[in-house]
């Protein structure tokens, strides 16, 4: 599989097919970051924590892809992590992986509509509905993607691999606070992840702790800086 060099993002679309980059004013379009992973691993909580941390410094939009309509979008609305007009829910016909990988048209439209309604945006977070270990985002939809797993899902997940674990630009191992309770060995997870991913980064998070999102936020800020610098 071809993987982009982490520092550069070649333009992939004719303007007719996706948002123009750069924009007419010369600025780059918003960086699009996908969050995928199995059901219950903490994707929505991760997106919510990112929004809370970054919303005062960045103009953010969120697109959710639910299995059931609007469940995740409503979580974000209920917790008021962003104003409602900055959150859009894509309906996926029971197949979130199709909407983020095989037929990305509804997601591209949702992003363009957010940009039109509340833009210019700096950052768009695209959250997949919980899916299996093979679900990854199309590179036509996002510029970078994180795959979120959790220790309670079993410390064997990194060893099992799959496209999400082995190729995502960032692997997030969430709920580390639960590790002692579920008998998960974080060192084994780190070692197996390293074997699957080589030099691609892995972060361990516990959103139950204050500033638990910091490692993911640091990664997002780094990607955004590289994106902006590559204008």
């Amino acid at each position, binding site marked *: 599989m071809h993987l982009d060099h982490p520092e550069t993002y070649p333009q992939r679309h*004719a303007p*007719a*097919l996706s948002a123009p980059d750069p924009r007419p004013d010369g600025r780059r379009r918003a960086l699009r970051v996908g969050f995928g992973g199995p059901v219950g691993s903490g994707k929505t909580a991760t997106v919510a924590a990112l929004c809370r941390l970054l919303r005062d410094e960045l103009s953010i939009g969120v697109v959710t892809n639910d*299995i*059931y*309509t*609007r*469940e995740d979008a409503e979580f974000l609305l209920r917790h008021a992590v962003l104003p409602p007009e900055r959150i859009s829910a*894509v*309906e*996926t*016909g*029971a*197949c979130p992986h*199709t*909407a983020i990988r*095989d*037929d*990305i*048209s*509804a997601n*591209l*439209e949702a992003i363009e509509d957010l940009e039109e309604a509340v833009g210019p945006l700096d950052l768009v977070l695209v959250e997949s509905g919980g899916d299996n270990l093979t679900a990854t985002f199309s590179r036509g939809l996002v510029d970078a993607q994180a795959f979120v797993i959790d220790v309670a899902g079993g410390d064997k997940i990194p060893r099992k691999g799959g496209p999400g674990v082995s190729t995502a630009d960032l692997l997030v191992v969430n709920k580390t606070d639960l590790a002692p309770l579920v008998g998960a060995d974080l060192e084994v997870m780190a070692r197996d992840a390293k074997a699957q991913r080589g030099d691609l980064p892995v972060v361990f998070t516990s959103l139950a702790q204050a500033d638990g999102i910091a490692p993911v936020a640091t990664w997002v800020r780094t990607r955004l800086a590289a994106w902006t610098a590559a204008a």
Partner: protein
Amino acid sequence: MTTTAGASAALLVLADGRFPAGGHAHSGGVEAAVRAGRLDDAAALERFCRGRLHTCGLVAAGLAAAAATGHDPLALDEAADARTPSPALRATARKLGRQMMRAARAAWPSAALDDLAAARPRGAHQPVVLGVAAASAGLGPPDAARAAAHESVSGPATAAVRLLGLDPFEATAVLARLAPEVDAVTAHALRRAERVAAEGTDALPAASAPLLDILAEHHAAWPVRLFAS
């Protein structure tokens, strides 16, 4: 308009269920029909699809054929609105039209598609876009009509497999049994589309399916659903 060399294979690309134009997220009314207890097996799916084919499918095929002929897509878009009483279904048709437009412009770029996209940035009705896309692909009105008629039943059949756990072989057999009727609806739609030049868009089929309209309005109001329509 004549079909150009290689255009037959282009039809396979356009009508492929994996063509990335948003169809996978729509059930064509099947989800609402299942919830209402009106559809629970392959026999019911066949009845549902037959009804949809001869109403929505015929209307879509007529619009697609006329658009592929080169008639004014904006007039056809208005004709589509007039034939779609349900606001939910109008919104769905435009949403799918916008998605079809993106895929078609990537696959078969043309001035006709660019013009329609500029005139209807929020999306024209899907069958109209399908017809313009077919022409851009070098296909003629018969292929455009056939693709629209086929789509009117293939989407619901796929959705029934997901919603009911229906045997996928049975669902495919339903589509195979309906194929001669898809051809008949295509022929009917073509005859009507040929009259548009002389009589205007009123000549196009205007069959309606009131129960699908009602189900669509109910469905659009559900807080939780698997399909967008």
